[in-house]
C-alpha cells in the first residue's frame, strides 16, 4: 500500500521527463532529459524487485546511450530544425 506513493512519484517524473525530451529544441538538453528518463526507469525496475534489469538499464540507458548520443550529435547540427 505504502509503496504506491513511491510508484506515483517515479511514474509522474517519467511522464514529465518524456514530455521534456519531446519539447526541448536543443539536442543536448534533450539527451540530458533522456538520461533522466533512463534513471527513473532504472529505479522503477529496482522497485519492482528486478535488480538485474535495473543494472542493465543503468549501464546501457544512463551511461552508454548518453555517450552514443553525444557522438551522434557531433555529426549533426546542434539544434532541431536547423538547415546546415
Amino acid at each position, binding site marked *: 500500500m505504502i509503496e504506491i506513493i513511491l510508484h506515483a512519484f517515479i511514474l509522474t517524473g517519467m511522464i514529465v521527463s518524456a514530455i521534456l525530451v519531446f519539447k526541448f529544441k536543443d539536442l543536448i538538453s534533450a539527451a540530458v532529459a533522456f538520461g533522466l528518463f533512463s534513471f527513473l526507469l532504472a529505479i522503477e525496475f529496482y522497485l519492482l524487485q528486478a535488480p538485474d534489469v535495473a*543494472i542493465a538499464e*543503468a549501464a546501457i540507458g*544512463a*551511461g552508454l546511450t548518453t555517450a552514443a548520443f*553525444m557522438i551522434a550529435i557531433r555529426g549533426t547540427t546542434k539544434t532541431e530544425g536547423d538547415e546546415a
Partner: protein
Amino acid sequence: MNDIFFIAIAVLGLLILFAALRLAIGPTAPDRVVALDTINTLVVGGMILLAVYLGQTIFVDVAIVYALLSFLGTIAISKYIGGEL
C-alpha cells in the same frame, strides 16, 4: 525502523522531482547537466536506502554499478559541451 527508512526514501523522491524542475527550466545546457548530476547522487542514496527497506542485500550492488556508470554520461556530455569530443 522500517518506517523511518520509508520516510527518507519518500523525501528523496520528492527531492528528485524538485531537481527535475531545475532540469526543466535551466537556461543553458550546463545547468541541466548539474541537475542530472544531482539526480544521480540522490538516486544512488535512494537505492541504498531501498535495499535496506526491502531487505535485499544484493540490491546494493546496483547502487555501486550505478555510481560508477552514471559518471560516464556526465563526462561524455561535458566533453561535448567543452568542445573536446
